[in-house]
């Protein structure tokens, strides 16, 4: 299982499509930095089919005033949870 990390907003970047192409059926996707915009209800359609495998970093949501506004089904984790995700994955791949 691979942890994919995405730091771009789907509003101005198509890189999220590269990440989705690269994901295997058990892989996980973590949204960080500008990428957390993708966790909002209006944007999450870009990540269809990732139920239970789509994460967003709490600290980056808080800094942007977006905490508590994520779509249902997005798993919000803090930076300790980010470390845990890297422990559980065989490796990580960053998309930027």
């Amino acid at each position: 299982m691979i942890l994919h990390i995405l730091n771009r907003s789907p509003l101005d970047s198509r890189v999220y499509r590269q990440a989705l192409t690269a994901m295997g059926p058990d892989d996980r996707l973590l949204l960080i930095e500008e990428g957390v915009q993708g966790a909002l209800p209006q944007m999450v359609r870009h990540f269809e089919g990732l139920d239970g495998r789509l994460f967003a970093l709490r600290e980056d949501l808080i800094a942007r005033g977006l905490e508590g506004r994520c779509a249902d089904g997005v798993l919000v984790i803090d930076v300790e949870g980010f470390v845990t995700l890297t422990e559980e994955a065989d490796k990580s791949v960053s998309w930027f």
Partner: protein
Amino acid sequence: MSDESNLPSGDLLVVLRHGPHGSLWLREGLEAALVAAALGQRVSLLFMGPGVAALAANQQRGPLEQKGTLPMLEMLPLYEVEQLLAVEDDLVALGLGAECLAVPVERVGPAAVAALMARHPLVLNF
């Protein structure tokens, strides 16, 4: 939403297209706007794309406790930068209704963007 005839004109239009915390684009764009205003220029600010996120209420300190850009937005009126505009479609895309905004902003349709570009002799894109 304002129709085009109400759009501001001025000396400088600063376009902010990047959100807070993710990069220096937003901060350095705001610094340019504040300096121009301090020099007596009439400055309009247009937030578009991910940049509309700069307007969100409840922003907090960054990953290493940096203070972010919200304090700069709150200083704008002191510098007489009062023309804050944001692209409606992008606000909607991020679910930013009026109740979610930290500062008052004029919501404009896509057609207003071109009109704003035409009404300012200098446009700086950040």
